[in-house]
């Protein structure tokens, strides 16, 4: 038996609410399955479970739960079912099969600890659709079970005392909450992280020519944007700079072997979010482009996954479309580095003793002095610049 807990969807999250279960008690779950939708200040997030087994003891909908609170229990295949009060099992009149003290540590944690009423699966599904806490309803079925009819009547009641307004629009962000979350994370970053900043001009003619030639052969639906090249180059360059890729928590830096690039994406209603593109170094550009487009779409329309918010090991921010030359960012804790890109624009450049007009991109690094120094940061930016001179080397999986 393993506990499935409320994930931390970024350093700034303390509580969340389950607003929808995508599984029913007794369902088989596999690692990576989306099992619940959790409402946070970043909107409604699809939460994945990385356990393998049969899920049970689902936490009630609409209840504010701390990060780390138990949301469900997952039994490994073949593991005997532990008798405990649960959605499917609780039979109020029968004596529990074992004393509560034997029910395991989870019984003391808020989620999963409260014995809940019997609720038919159909009723639970409908309740979830209507934003009703099915466990709070008075059941009229056998043994007091909550039936579909009970949910329907609760849903139709003019001001149902038991209904909890937990449904949020997918992708709907509360701008005030979003701003508070950004302020909290960035304030913490500036208080705790001794930032240093470096900038390096990067000639982009070869990269842009290579991209233009490639795009001329691609159908419109498969074209690459210039933004995808620096993201891949960052991931490849970071392989030799582990002190810039990872997380620093409780004073301990843990480098990451994989590079999960958090991509800062602005939202049309204001605010931003920086979910991860996973394993960027190992993916061909076409795949990264599809994933980036999908990520932007889901940031705006809803459907971000929990791992995308909890996994980034570094952040890339690109303000090129807004026309600035360079961006010096703020590190998103617990990460230790952020790479920024400005606009690609023609500027004077000395090439072989001659001044030429060259499309230039300014790459910046802000990094954490607790883990690295400017010397290593400078070598990283130089590596990044050199990689962007060999765009064909960015193409494939590696």
């Amino acid at each position, binding site marked *: 038996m393993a506990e499935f807990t409320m994930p931390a969807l970024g350093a700034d999250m303390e509580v969340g609410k389950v607003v929808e279960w995508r599984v029913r008690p007794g369902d088989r779950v596999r690692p990576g399955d989306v099992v619940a939708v959790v409402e946070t200040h970043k909107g409604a997030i699809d939460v994945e479970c990385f356990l393998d087994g049969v899920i049970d003891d689902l936490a009630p909908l609409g209840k504010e739960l701390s990060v780390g609170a138990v949301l469900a229990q997952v039994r490994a295949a073949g593991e005997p079912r532990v008798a405990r009060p649960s959605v499917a099992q609780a039979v109020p009149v029968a004596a529990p099969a074992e004393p509560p003290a034997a029910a395991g540590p989870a019984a003391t944690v808020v989620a999963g600890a409260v014995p809940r009423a019997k609720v038919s699966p159909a009723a639970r599904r409908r309740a979830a659709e209507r934003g009703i806490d099915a466990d709070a309803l008075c059941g009229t079925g056998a043994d007091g079970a909550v039936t579909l009819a009970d949910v329907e009547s609760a849903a139709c009641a003019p001001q149902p005392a038991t209904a909890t307004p937990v449904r949020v629009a997918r992708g709907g962000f509360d701008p005030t909450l979003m701003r508070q979350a950004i302020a909290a994370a960035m304030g913490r970053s500036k208080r705790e992280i001794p930032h240093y900043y470096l900038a390096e001009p990067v000639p982009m003619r070869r990269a842009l020519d290579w991209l*233009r030639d490639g*795009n*001329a052969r691609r*159908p*419109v*639906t498969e*074209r690459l*944007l*210039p*933004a995808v090249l620096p993201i891949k180059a960052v991931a490849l360059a970071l392989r030799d700079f582990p002190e810039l890729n990872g997380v620093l928590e409780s004073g301990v830096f843990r480098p990451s072997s994989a590079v999960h690039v958090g991509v800062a994406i*602005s939202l*049309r209603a204001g605010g931003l979010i920086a979910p991860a593109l996973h394993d960027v170094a190992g993916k061909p550009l076409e795949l990264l482009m599809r994933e*980036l*487009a999908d990520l*932007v779409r889901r940031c705006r329309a809803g459907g971000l996954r929990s791992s995308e918010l909890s996994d980034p090991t570094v952040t890339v921010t690109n303000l*090129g*479309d*807004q026309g600035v030359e360079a961006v010096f960012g703020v590190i998103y804790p617990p990460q230790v580095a952020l790479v920024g890109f400005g606009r690609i624009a023609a500027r004077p450049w000395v090439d072989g003793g001659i001044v030429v007009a060259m499309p230039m991109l300014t790459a910046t690094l802000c990094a954490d002095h607790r883990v690295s120094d400017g010397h290593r940061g400078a070598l990283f930016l130089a590596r990044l610049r050199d990689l962007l001179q060999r765009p064909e080397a960015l193409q494939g999986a590696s």
Partner: protein
Amino acid sequence: MDEAQIRGGVIAAIQAVAPELEPDELQASQPLRDQVDLDSMDWLNVIVGFHERFAVDIPETDYAQLTSLDAIVAYLRARLR
């Protein structure tokens, strides 16, 4: 497809990417991207939207012609003829 149909399809494709767009407030002869906040990803999605609605594959080298709503409609009319 007449001009009004093309214009309607163009606006719909832009609105699919930028739902906040008010077509009545759009100045058709003025630069589009000064009036609607479209980053390069949004713009690519608009171009893909044109591809889906009008079955035209607009090469990147032609993007520079697509400055305003009027210019886009004129470009597509020529291509669809």
